Every structure is written in structure tokens, then in C-alpha cells.
């Protein structure tokens, strides 16, 4: 027994030592040296320099209820976000970025000047350019372009603001998805949804603040980290729900366990956990207590909100849902229901957009068309449905992939491929946003004649993040979390709000 206690103490000390980083060391050095502190004393004299306002709730209170709602620094334009991520990277050249010039160069060798110093995932040697495989038309009053791969989408095109020249510095799915959702291509950072729920909490006490829905038969290549909480308390991570089977795994009570017994069990566990907290003051224990309680409430609330069978027939038809299956359409309808019930951040991942041309499903002229059909009706329906319920004004919809695709046809292994395909391309791709605070019908950014690079209005992934945070009421430069002795931001040290698409 004594041995064990000693080992525990040893472990605790070791952990403490590990938790001390170089930054803590430098910080305590600086505090010891009065001279260095002088600058902050001067700053304190300056009535103009306002220290960043502390969150209004005392820290311990937030610890007790980590999802309690908090006001953002300035009036938000939206309450909720629905982020539609097409995992695998959709081809902007067959959907939104119309490049008639590329037709003329179809089948010609790609100029060397474009290839020099560039790295592609699979393209080798000199690939051939490939013209758009879709037909384009200008639609709506905005006259924005959309292809015939998305025949329904034209109905809502005037609700949407396009970003035509987004760029990323990653060209492999995993890192690019991490970058797109956490602001860093390396593991360890919190995802946008985690930041949003950390900063704003969540209104509905019976549902998680951040819900993740996946479709397309696979989860994103980067794994669950794309909806992880990183260094934020784990209560802010996304909760993955399923549109097929139990909405959350193991949400049903086991056979023979009554709701009462369950309640008593949770109460007993939480009592012990509270004693633990009194001893060690680890906020993760509080998070755990809260999660037990939320899970208990969720057992009733989640099956209800995740049940699409009770929706009227015409709504089901509008979305094109297939109850009982796992589909993007089901997830879109669920996203609306969740937002309607006050969920802060709904993240949809649809897998299967990686159109290299190596297989039929991954071809630009066939596989991509199928994928487009699978999202076209649901997305259009989602926008219309939110609109008719008065929810589009207070919801932000973001659509995009982790990067775009090359204007060149892929030539994996320097050979002709079985199907038409395009390689990964981070230099220029299209994303769009719609909803509260967005300038309807806007189109920002332009790519060159063949859609290789942005020539006007280039925006980075950080810029997209800054814009999302802005709409939620945050200044992305001030919204920070202290970890390992330094303050972290979603946008790291970059990012500029894309004012051009804001109303």
C-alpha cells in the first residue's frame, strides 16, 4: 500500500516536471527580473491600452458547467455554423470555377513554367492539361457560374458568396484536412467547432454543443482530430453522431438496466468524482462529471433530434433522405434539426471526393458526377429549409474541401490513367459561405485562365477561419487559449477577415 502511494506521488511529481516547459521557465525568469516587467508597468499607466476583457463568468463557474453560454466580444451575426466538408477534395473546375480557356488547351502538355518548383501528390513528368468536363452557366441575379453537375444548386446561388481563390500549403489529405479544421497541419490543435463551443458555450443543455456527422462510407483521412479539442478541455470536442443505427454508440441502456438505476449509478459516480475534484482540482474531472450528466440527458434528447422519420414527407423528398441509411442527405436534414435545437456547431464530412481517375468512382466525368448528385439536392434543400424557418439569418453554412484539383489530368506513374482524373492542388480552389452576415451573391477572387493559381483576391485557410470567427462575434487575433506558457489562436499569427464577402 505504502509502496503504491509512493509510486503515485512519484508519478505526480514527474507529471509536474513534464508540464513545465521552456516557456514557463523563461516566463518565471522574466518575472524575477524586475527590469523586464517595467514595460508592462508603463502599459498599465496608459489609459488607452485596454487589457483583453476577461470572460465574464468566473473561471471556476465555467469549470462547473463548461458549456454555459458566454457572450462573444462583439455582436455576432450568426448563432450556429454548419460546416460541409467534402473529404477528398472536390474539383472546383467541374463545379464552380469555369475556365473556358482550359478547353482550348485540352490534351496539350502543361507548360514547364507552371511545374517548376511545384510538388504534386501523384503527377510525374509533364502532364497534359484537361478542359472542364462539365458545362457551365451563369445563374441567378448574381450571374455566378455553376456547372450542370449541380442542377438544383442554381436555385440558391444568390444566397451564396463564393471564394474562388482559396489556397492551402498542404497537398495530402490528412495534413490538409487538419489544416482546414484546426489551423495547423500538425496534430494537437483544437478544431474550429471546439473553439466555437469553448468561446460561446451552447444553448441547449440536453444536446452537445458540437456535433459531427459523417457520410460517404468513410471518416476523413485525418481521423477524429479534425473535430478534436486539441489542448482545449475535452468537453469541447465534437460528438460524432450516426444517421444509421444508434445515433450515438451505446446510447441505449443495456438490457435490464432501468432509467432509475442508471440515474443512481451516475449520481454515485459523480459523487466520487466530486470528492476527487476537491482533492486534485483537475478541471478534467469536472468535465467528466458534466459529460456523465449530459450523456444521461442526451439519452432522451438525441434519439429524438436524430430521428428523421417524423419529418413530413415533402421535407424528406426535398432533401432526398433515405431513412435508415447513412447518407449526406440524411445528415443535411439532421444538421437543420440540430441547429433548430440550438446546437452551436454542426460538422458534416462527406467522403469520396478524391477523383484521381484511377477507378471509376474516382473519375472526374463519372464518380464526381455521382458525388455531385448526392450533395446537390440536400445542400439546396438545406439552404431553402433554413431560409423558410428564419434560421438562415442566424446560421452560417461553409462549404469546401481540404484543397482543390489540378487543371492537368493526372498521369500517375507517368502513364495514362484508366479514367479522367485530376491530382491534388492547393494553389487555388473554391469554397463558399452562405447565411447570416454573408453578402448574398458575392464572388471574391479570381484564378488565372486555366485555374492554376489565384490572381486576384487570394485568401488563405487562416483568412477563412478569421471570417468564421468574426461572424460568431470574435476577433480572431484576441480569441486565445493559454497552453504550455503561450497563448494560442485558431489563426496562429496569420489570417485576415475576408470583408469582401461580408454584408
Amino acid at each position: 500500500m505504502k509502496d503504491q502511494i509512493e509510486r503515485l506521488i512519484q508519478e505526480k511529481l514527474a507529471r509536474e516536471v513534464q508540464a513545465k516547459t521552456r516557456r514557463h521557465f523563461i516566463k518565471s525568469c522574466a518575472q524575477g527580473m524586475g527590469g523586464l516587467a517595467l514595460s508592462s508597468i508603463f502599459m498599465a499607466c496608459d489609459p488607452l491600452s485596454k487589457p483583453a476583457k476577461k470572460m465574464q463568468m468566473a473561471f471556476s463557474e465555467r469549470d462547473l458547467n463548461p458549456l454555459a453560454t458566454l457572450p462573444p466580444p462583439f455582436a455576432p451575426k450568426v448563432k450556429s455554423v454548419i460546416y460541409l466538408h467534402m473529404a477528398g477534395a472536390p474539383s472546383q473546375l467541374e463545379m464552380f470555377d469555369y475556365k473556358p480557356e482550359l478547353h482550348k488547351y485540352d490534351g496539350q502538355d502543361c507548360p514547364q513554367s507552371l511545374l517548376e518548383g511545384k510538388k504534386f501528390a501523384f503527377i510525374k513528368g509533364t502532364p497534359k492539361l484537361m478542359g472542364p468536363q462539365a458545362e457551365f452557366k451563369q445563374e441567378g441575379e448574381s450571374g455566378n457560374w455553376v456547372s450542370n453537375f449541380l442542377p438544383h444548386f442554381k436555385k440558391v446561388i444568390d444566397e451564396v458568396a463564393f471564394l474562388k481563390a482559396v489556397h492551402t500549403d498542404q497537398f495530402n489529405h490528412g495534413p490538409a484536412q487538419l489544416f482546414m479544421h484546426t489551423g495547423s497541419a500538425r496534430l494537437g490543435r483544437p478544431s474550429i467547432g471546439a473553439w466555437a463551443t469553448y468561446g460561446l458555450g451552447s444553448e441547449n443543455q440536453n444536446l452537445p454543443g458540437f456535433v459531427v456527422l459523417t457520410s460517404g462510407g468513410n471518416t476523413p483521412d485525418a481521423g477524429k482530430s479534425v473535430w478534436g479539442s486539441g489542448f482545449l478541455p475535452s468537453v469541447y470536442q465534437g460528438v460524432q453522431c450516426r444517421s444509421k443505427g444508434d445515433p450515438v454508440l451505446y446510447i441505449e441502456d443495456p438490457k435490464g438496466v432501468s432509467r432509475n438505476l442508471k440515474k443512481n449509478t451516475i449520481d454515485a459516480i459523480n459523487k466520487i468524482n466530486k470528492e476527487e475534484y476537491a482533492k486534485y482540482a483537475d478541471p478534467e474531472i469536472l468535465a467528466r462529471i458534466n459529460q456523465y450528466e449530459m450523456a444521461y440527458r442526451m439519452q432522451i434528447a438525441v434519439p429524438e433530434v436524430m430521428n428523421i422519420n417524423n419529418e413530413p414527407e415533402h421535407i424528406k423528398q426535398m432533401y432526398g433522405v433515405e431513412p435508415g441509411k447513412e447518407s449526406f442527405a440524411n445528415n443535411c436534414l439532421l444538421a437543420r434539426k440540430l441547429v433548430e435545437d440550438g446546437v452551436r456547431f454542426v460538422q458534416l464530412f462527406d467522403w469520396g471526393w478524391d477523383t484521381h481517375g484511377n477507378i471509376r468512382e474516382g473519375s472526374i466525368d463519372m464518380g464526381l458526377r455521382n458525388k455531385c448528385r448526392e450533395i446537390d439536392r440536400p445542400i439546396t434543400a438545406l439552404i431553402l429549409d433554413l431560409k423558410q424557418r428564419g434560421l438562415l439569418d442566424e446560421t452560417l453554412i461553409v462549404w469546401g474541401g481540404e484543397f482543390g484539383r489540378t487543371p492537368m489530368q493526372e498521369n500517375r506513374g507517368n502513364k495514362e490513367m484508366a479514367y479522367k482524373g485530376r491530382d491534388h492542388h492547393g494553389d487555388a480552389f473554391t469554397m463558399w459561405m452562405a447565411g447570416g452576415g454573408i453578402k448574398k451573391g458575392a464572388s471574391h477572387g479570381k484564378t488565372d485562365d486555366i485555374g492554376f493559381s489565384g490572381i486576384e483576391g487570394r485568401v488563405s485557410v487562416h483568412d477563412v477561419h478569421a471570417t468564421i470567427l468574426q461572424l460568431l462575434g470574435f476577433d480572431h487575433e484576441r480569441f486565445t487559449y493559454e497552453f504550455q506558457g503561450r497563448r494560442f489562436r485558431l489563426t496562429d499569427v496569420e489570417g485576415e477577415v475576408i470583408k469582401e464577402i461580408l454584408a
Partner: protein
Amino acid sequence: MDVLKQLLGRLHPIIVHLPIGFIVFGLLLQWYDRKRQTYGELIPIAYLWGGIAAVVACLTGYLQYTGEGYAFDTVKWHLWSGVATALFSFLMYAKSEGTKAFSFLERTPTITLSIVFFILISFTGHKGGNITHGEDYLVEPLPNNIKSALGYETFEEKQIKLNEDNWEEALLYEDVVKPILNNNCVSCHNPKKTKGELLLHSKEGILNGGENGEVVVANDASQSEVFTRMKLPNDDDNHMPPEGKRQPTKEEIILLGAWIDAGHPFEGTIKENGLAKELFTSFFPQNLDNDYPDIEITAASQDSIKIIEETGVHVDPISESSNFLSVSCINKPAFSDADFENLLSIAPQIAQLDLGGTQVTDAIFEKLTQLPNLTILKLDNTSITGQNIKQLSSLEHIKSINLTASKFEETHLPDFSGFKKLKKIYLYKTKSESQGIKTLNDGQITVDYGNYELPPIPSDSIIY
């Protein structure tokens, strides 16, 4: 020989620290020893070496002055006080040796001499520092208000004041370009600092250019360094303003470019120079389309908020900087007309009220008139029929009413004609069979009936 002269001269900034060290050491020792009297012999040695080192410093300093082409005016205070420091050090040596050669030394108390000496050496050092680092080196990091209190010139941020009505009449250079340069560039490119030998605070300065020649090329921003350096990526070594300094906004840079493209005129209004309006719109006061009234209001008491929250109703400030509140019954579907009384303690602050999915009835309208600043009202999924909804017209800020899935009856639609600021009504899933959008009050109010449809099209079922 010249090489040696210059080299020795350049050693001056290093050598000066030697006498400073000796002298300060001597002064400290003297203070430390004032009662103990155990190091008495050391003190004169410190001053003697201090004096000798000060002489060497003076000599190298003189070499630097002549070798580096400083104007006498720049160095004169430092030069003479340096010489005085050297002499004074020997005086202190004499005093601490207890010499009887100078009678005034005997009469002056050691403490007086020490203080004078300390001031003298600090002054000398400071003047020397000013020569190498610039006059405002120490003051620069201070906040503007302290700087001006100390009598230093500050480059106060000048606001660009333009609006929808006056923008054409504003002077292009004086009212727009100059403030941009002033706020972003002049803290370094001013007559005192003249970084890169460039001045950007005046017409003459801009036209004269800097050490690399011209910075503005008439009608060609892409050749004008003042513009191109700002356009470089922030991490480029040549980017201006340098890292850590305030950066101009995208709009400011674009405007500077447009000004240069227009031949960088220093005279005339915006209109006379014929620049397009969209260059300036970002400087107009932002018409903040807030979802709550544009008036100041006192904060609700935290106690009242707490009491209401304990009943299960959410009460949240709209933002940290606003006293307006958003109230939501999302967690309290049992909320009924009677519960409304609880909200009255925060009545003036309520700007958004979400009663969606609650038990409220048409009797709520009369009560709602007690919320003078109500802007957004949600009554979706309730049994509201719209009877008495007319009473809400006394709410002068109300902008949006959501009646989705309520029992609203179309006969009450004309009641909205008296609503001054109402913009949106949502009537989806009410008894009405209408579809899409209708407008009321000559387009002031948009009524959204919803019932949008996406009819099937052939391509829905084509699988490739």
C-alpha cells in the same frame, strides 16, 4: 594612419563603458563604506583608473568625432561633459586621497561631490547614447500621452473622416493620403529619425525620396517604392512598415496606389482628382446593421438575471460590450404567459426574445409591449393565432417576427401595416398555403411563407 584613427574611433562606444564601470564602482564603494571605513584605500584607486580610462575614452571619442564626420553641434554636449567627467574623476581621486592641494575640495562634503559626479556621468552617457541611437530612443516605446506630457512630438493617429455626403469635397492629400502616411509611416520617416533618409510627413519629403532615390513615380504605383514595399508579403525583409509596427489596411494600400496612379496630386478635392468612390467607401463610418437598437442603455442587474436563469430561461448579453440581452426559452418549453412577469425586471434590456416551442398564447402580445427595445421575436411552434398582434406596433424597434409552425391566421396580416421598422415575418407551416415571398407596406416587410420545393428532375436518378 587614417585606418587606425577610424578603428580606434569606432572602439569608443566600447571603451566608454570602462570609465563608467570604474566610476560607478567607486561611487558605490564609497556609499557602501561610509560607516565601515574598511575599503578606504580602494576608493581612490577606482577613481584614478576611472580618470585614466575616461581620458582614453575622450581620445577615442574625439577620433570618432573627426573620423566619422559628425557635426560639432551634434556632439558638443557629449564631448565637453566627457572631458568634464575625466577631470572630475581625478578630482574625486584627489578628494578621496585626502589631498590638501585644493582648499575648495576640503570644504565641499564628499556626498555633494558624489551626487554631482553621478549626475555628470549619467548626463554624459545619455548624450552619447542619443548620438548613436537617436534622440527619442528611450522615449519612443512610451505611450503617446506620456510622450506628449514629457514634451516630445507625437505622431497622433489622425482619423480619416469621410462619409456618404462629404467624400467628394474632401481634400485628397490633406484629408486622406496624409493621415494614412501619418498613421503608418511617419513614426520612422520624420525629420528626427529620417529612416532610410526618407521623409513622409510632407510634400517635399515625399517628392525628395530616400537613400534609394525616388519613392513615387508619377502615374505608376507599380514602380513606386512607397507602394510596392507595402505590397510585399509581411515576412519579406523589404516589407514596409517593418515587422512589429502598425500595418496599413488593404484598403489604405489600394488607395495609396490609386493616388500615385493619379499622379500623386497634393492639391484638390477627391472629386477634382476624379478618383472612384469605391476607393473611399471603406473609410465611411460603418453602417452597423446591428440586430438591436442603436441607443445606450444601463445594464440589467446581475441579481435579476440570476433569478431568471434559475427558472431555466437563458439570459445572455448580446455581446461583451452591449447591455442588451438575448433571452431564450430553449430549455424551458413549459414557459407560459404567467412566467412572463419574471422577465419584467430586465424589460428594457431585452432585445431578442425566443419563445419558440413554449406554451404562450395570444395573451402574450399585451405583455410584450412592455419590452420597449425588443428587436427580434420568435414565436415559432406555439399556439399563437395572431389575435392582438397589432399591439406590438407600439414597439418601435421590432424588426423580425418568427411565426413558423404557429397557428397564425392570415386575417391578421394587415395588422402589420402599422409596424414602422418591421422587416421580416416568417409564416412557414402556418395555415396558409401560400408559397415563397410576399411583401407588405410597399416592400418594407418581407413575408416568407416558405413551402419551397425542389421538384424532381431527370438527372436526379441518373447514376454514372
